[in-house]
């Protein structure tokens, strides 16, 4: 909310600069987001009166005006359409400066010398209005007096304050002034609200019926007659402009001015458009249609509160008036509403219809139910100050749910228990009194305070404590570096596992990426089947409408992003959750690790090595590295048609009975969907399942005391036979001393028949009890070769 320091000074003495004031307000919780210093962009402009308007001999639209400048009559050529005899105007005579740096000179205009300029608001830098000259008839200026442009002290500051939702009382100049009074220990001066009334009582014009006291606990109103609708005086327009409100006409401006001043929203109706001399506050009918004054038609529901006359709706309560009863140029009599509406009712309607106004913004945060009379009186007084009118006698005030002031007991020792320092009782009382929170009962070590009706945010002791500390100063609360700590701790093994996996992957050269978990439909379909994904109801775009079901599509996005930027050799991974729906419960959130590899193995070619493309085995090796690091010994890779991965090569990773992940190459068709034109290999691990297979702690096993014997064995088999089947066969049949069987060479080509391959295995034998002899091994090897021959038609390679 924008406030003008000049305006604030109507209510409280301010002796510091706008910058310092901003700082002080920020430090009591009214964060000032922007400070703008305003100075007049003119100098030497005086008030003149147009005494004489004559046509220009050489122009249709120019006029020659004789302007009384106090000391003499000045002749000014003026092209403004609104110049009239008798007007008070802002006159820039020769020598004056306008528009920041334009010095006014005596110049002939079409042959007639002009000795000055009658200024528009734009020429004075006061607004963008250049439709005519600035007319100052209603501002109490005297001819010849220097014109200050509303800058009473030569300058003004506009503060943009971020008022938190709990402080609707600060959505007003007086509200902010009250805080300032507390900060600087000054008096707040509340303006006069006594109104000169005419003799005819309001009851003879209108009556009010509130059918829904829950939605409208209080409805106050005045009737003002014989008003002439016109432009507001300059000072009023200028003040509204300064806080960002557009001037409309005197009546609407007055309601807006009082809204800004008191924080209480008012609405002015054209009395003569109200039918049946009656106002009814009721809930709308279902499907009732209503056109707001912005010309938009709305369909209402039974929850919406509607202000009606004898026949129809005339305003959406607390939100916006109706087009049918709006103030217009023909308006002469007005009905001025000053009500207190239930915050939740206003908020629901405002939200559902998508209308937010200055009024609804305040009502839904909580206006002051005790402020309706003050506000309507201020408005009536202001209107009669600026324009001729008759205020009908009396106020209608339907107050069906009387507001009861809350009482809060504040125990002084409690302040120290919450804040950590002692705040003297004197300071406590001074602060609360300054905020008009009055003590109503003194007890031993505590005081009962009465909360003003504007402070909906104060409902318990802690709320009062906050009031006290924020004005006492958060910076005066000691920063305690000696504290007792609680040694209870919450173990999180999965978190530790994730960090370990991260370290392993980064250690072998992977880049960690982080993607949004909200993705497009396409992203949810490629790598899973079955349940439809979880959907965001109010997503901003279809690109972020679904909760991801696999990390891989996001990795493909990251790959594409980098490919498009010339980075072709990528090894990336992400650790994050995927989501799967669960009936009537929060969804399953499954922590996953996925990685993707593409391009060359090395980002840069090494001079000693040939370039090598990544392939399936690099992906497989990642998994092997992780499980080895984590000491998960019983992992098997099984053929598995993993969705989205090439059928031939994709494998699932199994440990005991648990499937912990999968690896493979992304299917061509999917790569095309992601606009990727190169091979991508991926791996995925389900962290929860991996964790379940991880040994809690490894046990030390004695280091072997006896040497091992190694034997190499090369066999030739049919191409179609899988290495693992042979390897595991050897492992199984090699006796208890065979501790490992590893493939160390695979050869096809010269010396090997087509359709065959040569496999070389290294077998390691070792006994825990004794040193093995070479000649014990020979028969084992012979037997193995024999069995391999029978089982796989394997031939020994000589």
């Amino acid at each position, binding site marked *: 909310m924008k406030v003008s320091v000049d305006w604030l000074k109507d209510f409280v003495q301010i002796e510091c600069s706008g910058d310092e004031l901003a700082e002080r307000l920020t*430090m009591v*919780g009214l*964060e000032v987001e922007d400070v703008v210093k305003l100075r007049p962009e003119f100098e030497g402009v005086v008030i003149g009166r147009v005494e004489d308007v004559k046509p220009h001999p050489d122009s249709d639209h120019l006029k020659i005006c004789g302007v009384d400048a106090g000391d003499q009559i000045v002749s000014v050529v003026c092209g403004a359409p609104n110049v009239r005899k008798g007007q008070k105007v802002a006159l820039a005579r020769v020598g004056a400066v306008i528009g920041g740096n334009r010095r006014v000179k005596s110049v002939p205009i079409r042959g007639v010398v002009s000795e000055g300029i009658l200024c528009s608001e734009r020429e004075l830098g006061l607004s963008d209005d250049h439709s005519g000259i600035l007319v100052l008839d209603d501002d109490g200026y005297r001819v010849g007096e220097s014109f200050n442009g509303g800058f009473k002290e030569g300058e003004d500051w506009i503060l943009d304050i971020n008022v938190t*939702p709990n*402080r609707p009382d600060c959505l007003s100049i007086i509200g902010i002034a009250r805080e300032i009074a507390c900060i600087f220990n000054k008096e707040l001066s509340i303006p006069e609200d006594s109104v000169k009334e005419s003799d005819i009582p309001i009851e003879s014009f209108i009556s009010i019926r509130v059918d829904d006291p829950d939605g409208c606990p209080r409805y106050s109103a005045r009737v003002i007659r014989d008003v002439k609708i016109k432009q507001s005086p300059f000072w009023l327009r200028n003040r509204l402009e300064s806080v960002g409100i557009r001037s409309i006409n005197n009546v609407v401006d007055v309601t807006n001015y009082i809204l800004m001043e008191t924080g209480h929203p008012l609405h002015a109706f054209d009395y003569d458009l109200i039918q049946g001399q009656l106002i009814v506050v009721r809930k709308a009918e279902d499907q009732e249609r209503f056109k707001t004054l912005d010309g938009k038609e709305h369909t209402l529901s039974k929850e919406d509160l509607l202000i009606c006359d004898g026949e129809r709706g005339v305003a959406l309560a607390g939100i916006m008036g109706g087009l049918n009863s709006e103030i217009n140029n023909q308006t002469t009599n007005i009905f001025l509403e000053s009500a207190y509406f239930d*915050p939740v009712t206003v908020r629901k309607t405002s939200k559902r219809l998508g209308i937010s106004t200055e009024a609804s913004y305040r009502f839904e945060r909580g206006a002051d139910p005790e402020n309706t009379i003050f506000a309507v009186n201020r408005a009536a007084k202001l209107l009669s100050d600026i324009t001729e009118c008759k205020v009908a006698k009396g106020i209608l005030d339907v107050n069906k749910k009387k507001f009861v002031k809350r009482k809060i007991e504040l125990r002084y020792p409690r302040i*120290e*228990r*919450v*804040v*950590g*320092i002692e705040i003297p009782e004197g300071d406590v009382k001074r602060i609360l009194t300054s905020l008009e929170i009055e003590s109503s009962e003194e007890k031993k070590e505590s005081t009962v305070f009465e909360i003003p009706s504007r402070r909906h945010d104060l409902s318990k002791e*802690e709320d009062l*404590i906050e009031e006290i*500390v924020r004005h006492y100063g958060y*910076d005066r609360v000691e*920063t305690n570096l*000696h*504290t*007792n*700590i*609680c*040694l*209870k*701790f*919450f173990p*999180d093994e999965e978190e530790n596992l994730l960090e370990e996996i*991260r370290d392993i992957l*980064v*250690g072998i*050269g*992977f*880049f*960690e*990426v*982080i*993607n*949004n*978990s*909200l993705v497009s439909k396409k992203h949810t379909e490629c790598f899973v089947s079955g349940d439809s994904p*979880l959907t*965001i*109801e*109010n997503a*901003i775009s279809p690109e*972020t409408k679904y909760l991801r079901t696999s990390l891989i599509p996001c990795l493909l996005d*990251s790959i594409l*992003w*980098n490919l498009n930027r010339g*980075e072709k050799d*990528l*090894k*990336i991974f992400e650790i994050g*959750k995927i989501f799967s729906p669960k009936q009537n419960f929060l*969804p399953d*959130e499954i922590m996953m690790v996925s990685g993707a590899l593409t391009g060359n193995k*090395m980002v*840069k070619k090494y*001079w*000693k090595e040939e370039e090598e493309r990544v392939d399936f085995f690099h992906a497989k090796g990642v998994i092997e590295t992780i499980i080895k690091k984590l000491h998960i010994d019983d992992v098997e890779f099984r053929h598995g048609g993993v969705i989205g991965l090439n059928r031939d090569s994709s494998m699932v990773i199994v440990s005991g009975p648990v499937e912990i992940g999968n690896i493979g190459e992304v299917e061509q068709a999917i790569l095309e969907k992601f606009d990727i034109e190169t091979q991508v290999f991926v791996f995925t691990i389900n962290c929860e399942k991996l964790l379940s297979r991880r040994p809690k702690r490894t046990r030390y096993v004695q280091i072997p005391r006896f040497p091992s014997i190694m034997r190499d064995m090369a066999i030739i088999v049919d191409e179609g036979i899988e290495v693992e089947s042979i390897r595991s066969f050897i492992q199984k049949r090699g006796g208890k001393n065979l501790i490992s069987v590893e493939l160390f060479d695979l050869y096809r080509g010269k010396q090997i028949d087509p359709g065959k391959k040569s496999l070389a295995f290294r077998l390691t034998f070792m006994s825990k009890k004794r040193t093995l002899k070479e000649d014990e091994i020979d028969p084992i090897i012979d037997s193995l070769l024999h069995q391999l021959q029978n089982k796989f038609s394997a031939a020994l390679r000589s």
Partner: protein
Amino acid sequence: MQIDDIKEKIEKLKKDFNESIKKIDDVRSFEEVRIRFLGRKGFISELFKILPQLDNETRKESGKLINELKQEVSLSISKIQKKVSEKRKEKVKTDPTLPGYPWPVGRYHPITTVLREIKRCFRQMGFSVVRGPEVETQYYNFEALNIPKDHPAREMHDTLYLNDDMLMRTHTSPVQVRVMEKNPPPIRIISPGRCYRRDTPDATHSPVFWQVEGLCVDEGVTFSDLKGVIQSFAWMMFGKDIKIRFRPSYFPFTEPSAEYDFSCMICGGKGCRICKGTGWIEISGAGMVNPAVFKYVNYDSEKYTGYAFGMGVERIAMLLYGINDIRLFYENDVRFLNQF
């Protein structure tokens, strides 16, 4: 020929060979010796050719002896060959300016790095790390944090909904409630994690972001303690010159509430572009746990007090590394990631 003659020939050859190898000083002389003794027409081959002329007994013994000789010579030759070829290699000097082997260098995402640092700081201060779900109910995300339905405070959170009850958590504060529900005081935890808001991405907003929430509940915990923890964190994270500033603010789940700022780490508090001339950098919110929240988890607010605080991980990363656009964190450009 008799066996003794053969023996004599062998002895002579041995002597001859031992003399010859002494003279080897380069590849050429080595090759010459090798061919002379082991070549197809070399002395040893010649010796084998004698065998067929011998009688059975002698041939058998001679064969064995010649074979032994051959093995002995071959062994010597191969040893010498190694030496000679090493000598030859020495002549090609190693160029140590060639690039070293490029062992792979992976990278942690900067969010991870900063998150780890934050966790380290708070673990040092005795906090445990606790995680919670990213999809939450209205109850945990709002209600139990004293943000009732139809309250304007909900406007502080632009929320993504899955249905009337389920939503993407807008902060990690729901974990507070979950932890307190299951554990009696004392509590001393932080809870890091992803959060979501209905924001269109721009330089300072991301629809997904990381937050760390802190909570401490015990007897005698005060606002003064909260300031201490935040001050200590500021020192650990940004250096020992960093000052802190608490300003009153509003969060429905804390009372009193504060925003906390750090003195600008770029200009040292003098005022610069980063701190918009104020000397202070806004970090996040904090405050004393609102007794209304304690009511939801059945904590006795007469006995226990607590503080809570939050912080945005990206915000801290941006300050630490001088990153000026939050979207960079989620583009995963390797040229970006490679810098951390």
